[in-house]
């Protein structure tokens, strides 16, 4: 039977996430290469806008209006919908490698016994199934992996493919939610926003990072200023998080987030291996550090030897001047 590949979309603030458009593009290209077909899924309290956007990328999208997801963790409800689609013939499930996507993928593996190709930085079809490329051992090796059965799950890192809409918009099919969650429901009592954390680090095109050299919470002022001027998002290293200068949610690296922005600008970042694991596949890496021997120089496309509190404000002034020109 030709494969039927499911792209699971995620919604943030009522709109489809950027990563979901990449997941959908990948699912469609895999289906085209395999001679199969692709379908999308949006599970949200108000899924219609996101489903319509997902349908720009896929011939068919299932929109499930699930009021429970407003007050519960998403994965138990989403996995119930994925399992219904599996019962209807879906052979491969593609999700974003996000917190929710990983929770859903893990639950699906536990419930179905299907294999998981995790954290794909790219994927193709080899004639029998998907082949993914992913980074393991903290970026020390890149492995190509396949499934040994005609069914399985893939999670996709941001930036693995460039999102590309299909030639024409697909059909959106609305359906009622499954009666029961796939795993026990987990209520959300409160959703708390922290200052400076409005934008998604993993989806950002430009990331400006403050490391140990920033020295204090106030030191992040210049990091925030430059992020604002560049249209980027503030990130951090383990050292600056451990020091308590910024929230853990901003941390990039082995025990934090893995990002792949077009531009990474590091201020006072030494470039410890634990951090490089999370940023070394950025398109362009620029770093400012007083220490000419800082390991970040090994991966930087442009390395400025200088004090971030001098070079940073000078760069901000330069950017403001060019904007005004």
């Amino acid at each position, binding site marked *: 039977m030709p494969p039927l590949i499911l792209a699971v979309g995620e919604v943030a603030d009522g709109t489809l996430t950027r990563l979901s458009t990449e997941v959908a593009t990948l699912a469609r290209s895999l289906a085209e290469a395999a001679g199969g077909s692709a379908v999308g899924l949006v599970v949200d309290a108000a899924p219609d806008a996101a489903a319509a956007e997902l349908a720009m990328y896929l011939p068919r999208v299932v929109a499930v209006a699930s009021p429970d997801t407003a007050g519960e963790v998403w994965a138990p409800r989403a996995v119930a919908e994925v399992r219904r689609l599996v019962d209807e013939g879906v052979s491969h499930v593609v999700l974003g490698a996000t917190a929710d996507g990983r929770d859903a993928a893990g639950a*699906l593996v536990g419930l179905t016994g299907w294999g998981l190709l995790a954290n794909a930085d790219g994927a193709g079809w080899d004639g029998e199934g998907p082949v993914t490329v992913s*980074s393991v*051992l903290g*970026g020390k090796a890149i492995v190509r*992996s396949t499934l040994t059965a005609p069914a399985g799950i893939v999670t996709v890192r941001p930036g693995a493919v460039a999102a590309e809409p299909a030639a024409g918009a697909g059909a959106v099919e609305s359906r009622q939610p499954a009666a029961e969650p796939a795993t*026990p429901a987990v209520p959300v009592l*409160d959703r708390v926003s922290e200052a400076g954390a409005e934008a998604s680090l993993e989806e950002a095109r430009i990331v400006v990072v403050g490391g140990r050299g920033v020295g204090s919470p106030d030191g992040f002022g210049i990091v925030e200023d430059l992020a604002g001027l560049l249209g980027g998002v503030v990130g951090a290293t383990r050292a600056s*998080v451990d020091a308590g200068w910024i929230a853990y949610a901003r941390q990039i690296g082995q025990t934090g987030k893995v990002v792949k922005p077009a531009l990474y600008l590091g201020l006072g970042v030494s470039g410890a291996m634990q951090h490089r694991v999370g940023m070394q596949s950025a398109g362009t890496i620029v770093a400012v550090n007083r220490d000419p021997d800082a390991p970040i120089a090994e*991966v930087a496309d442009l390395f400025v030897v200088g004090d971030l509190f001098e070079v940073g404000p000078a760069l901000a002034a330069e950017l403001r001047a060019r904007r005004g020109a």
Partner: protein
Amino acid sequence: MRILVLTKPVPDPAAGAERLGPDFRLDRAASPTVVNGNDEYALEAALQLVEAQGGEVAILSMAPANAVETMRKALAMGALRGVLVTDPALEGADLPTTIRVLAAAAAAESFDLLLAGLDTSDGQGGAVAAGVAARLGLPLLSNAASIEPDVATGRVRVRRISAKGYDVIEAPMPAVVSCTQALGAPRYPSLKGIMAARSREIATRSLADLGDGLAPGGGAWATRVVGAEKPPARAAGRVVKAPPADAARELADFLADRRLI
């Protein structure tokens, strides 16, 4: 309060010697082994909960037989006993098998909370806790920045890190929690802890002990690594040593050339 912590022995990222063997599997002889970093945060959180509320912390690993040495490091931090699932038939086990085996081993213990690191530094898949929870039919509270069990109500409350901050989530116990660095730095084992760990029990279990059908025979795993390579080296970058205003101008020119501003 009984807490079971999943602890995976992994190659020490700090040693920088991790590598894959010719069969594309982890070359376990190449690198010293430590308890996975995120599992140490889980263990620390478990120890603090038990110190405050009473109870017992045990650890559970699925690993080669020599993993007892690494597990002793976790016992030295304060866990009272360990369970090691080890079996030649599990060599190179895939994720579905790992989940089935850990779930079966956990089900043989009694616990209020099952903690695990959010992901491991070697595979980085980050799906084991969710899979084990699903197999056991237990609620998953993932990405925990804090864990507050309430013995009186039998419920556990977790701050789950979100893209914007955190969500406060709650579920009845027993429950599975995946743990992050935000829980706080793990303690160093004391000399007393290291001495005590020597005599603590690490029970070993084989596949046969846990039940039939947990692993496919003959290494018929659901996924296969078909190739591996080193990541491409980045071309040597440009180094700028100039007064701040000049350096800033050169930096802005560089960004403009690459159409990043």
